[in-house]
């Protein structure tokens, strides 16, 4: 089923899982990030945060699918993860001005929280969404395997998302939210950097062969 090297395949799936974890971690924390400014009404939680994550993910899937066809898709993925990580590292510093600004502009808990969720979480979620299509492309060497590989990536990264949800909501709330988001960002930057180093050098080797 998996035609790429065994360890490479494990690595690819692991990347998809880590990103799946972070998407849901960010979504759970997102509700808490917005609550001080827009309350914890159903609009904020169900409407704004979940809605923005879904829309951003769908845009990310599209972008990821498009990028996966390019020769330098590994470099693109590395850059995407580093950018998402950088955004998360910086987020604690611009959360307050963004939310205060939107609140002071007179937007209410519905439209205000929707806009704030877009500004804060739209970009990193979109970037994390590019991972799955790229991972499927890397794993697939034969067209007939594509469905199986897609199923594998979706299933495992969604299990990781589940774990991210539960661990964040049950245990990570015990530590500083800013710290959690910053550390997650740093992990993504490191992951993206590793992909750039390893992946791009392999691509170069492949070119030589």
């Amino acid at each position, binding site marked *: 089923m998996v035609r790429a090297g065994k360890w490479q395949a494990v690595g690819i799936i692991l990347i998809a899982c880590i990103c799946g974890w972070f998407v849901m971690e960010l979504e759970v924390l997102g509700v808490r990030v917005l*609550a001080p400014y827009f309350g914890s009404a159903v609009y904020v939680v169900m409407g704004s945060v979940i809605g923005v994550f879904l829309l951003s993910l769908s845009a990310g899937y599209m972008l990821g699918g498009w990028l996966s066809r390019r020769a330098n898709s590994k470099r693109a993925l590395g850059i995407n993860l580093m950018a998402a990580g950088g955004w998360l590292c910086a987020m604690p510093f611009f959360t307050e001005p963004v939310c205060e600004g939107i609140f002071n502009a007179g937007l209410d808990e519905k439209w205000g929280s929707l806009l704030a969720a877009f500004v804060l979480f739209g970009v990193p979620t979109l970037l994390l969404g590019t991972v799955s299509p790229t991972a499927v492309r890397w794993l697939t060497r034969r067209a007939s395997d594509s469905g199986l590989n897609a199923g594998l990536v979706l299933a495992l990264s969604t299990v990781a998302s589940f774990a991210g949800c539960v661990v964040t909501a049950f245990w990570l709330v*015990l530590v500083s939210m800013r710290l959690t988001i910053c550390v997650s960002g740093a992990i993504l930057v490191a992951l993206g950097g590793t992909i750039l180093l390893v992946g791009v050098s392999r691509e170069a080797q492949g070119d030589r062969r």
Partner: protein
Amino acid sequence: MKNRMGKAVLIMMFCAAGLWQVLSVGEAAAGGSGRLIHKKDSLYHRIFVYRDGSVVTLQFGRRPAVPMQSQVNLSNLRQHMLEYTMLSFCGLLYKPEPERMLVLGLGGGVIPREMRYYLAELEIDVAEIDPEIRTIATEFFGFREDDKLKVHIDDGRMFIKKQLGREPTVKYDIVILDAFNGDYIPFHLMTKEFLEEVKGLLAADGVVVANVFYNNRLFDAELKTFLTVFGRCQVFVGGDSTNAMLAAPGPTGPTLTVREAVGRAKILQRKHKLAFDLLTVAKRLRPKTRPAPRAKVLTDDRAPVNWLRAQERRR
């Protein structure tokens, strides 16, 4: 064959009916205080209203961590059925003649209704997130709005932020924090940042009164947070309940001894002809209550409220 199918259908119907019976009985029994007279799913809560004779009870969810949100005796509205509504009058000990009051959380509307009843000149703003609660308080709990008692449908924190943005900022003499969901107080209404916003609306000689539960570690964190923001915070501990009132006076407000509190209570008792005993409230002041040494301030960044709430308080 057909016969057998008919039997199966019949059995299934019986099972469904039995299950329905069990569920509906369970529903009535969970309240433990009479007959379910109203049920409503609002945006925020599953609201149950029970009635037993003239006593009406408000409850969120079927097996909530907070057993009763509100309880009223319709044949004697002056009677405080739950201890915390009586304890909330401790604010008057610090600010005996308040002109403006803010209450977060309406529930059955007992606190604002009774304050309005005794203090005719007092203007009260209530912030309540759930419009259904206003309807239910009016319909079942003898609550009425008027020109001096207004309910604003808004999240408590957002209401305070909006009030802070108004020019000139209207200051409140007493702020009562009583916003609860079926679980406890929402986390964003307990943090240091929130209390700083409350402080911005408080008159210099005013007082913030917060209804909390004292039997868990969250209490220490809440007390610590109040002390951090206001510098001073006194505690009135419930006798019949696990409720406690945190009372944090503004910079020029008094710090009371039990004797002073009782003295002030006597004057208020006579002046307003209170139907309940404010002296017992004053005697519930515990001036030596301090947070556990390891308690941490709750912030918007870190407020593990559900976790702390589940831990029993060490003494």
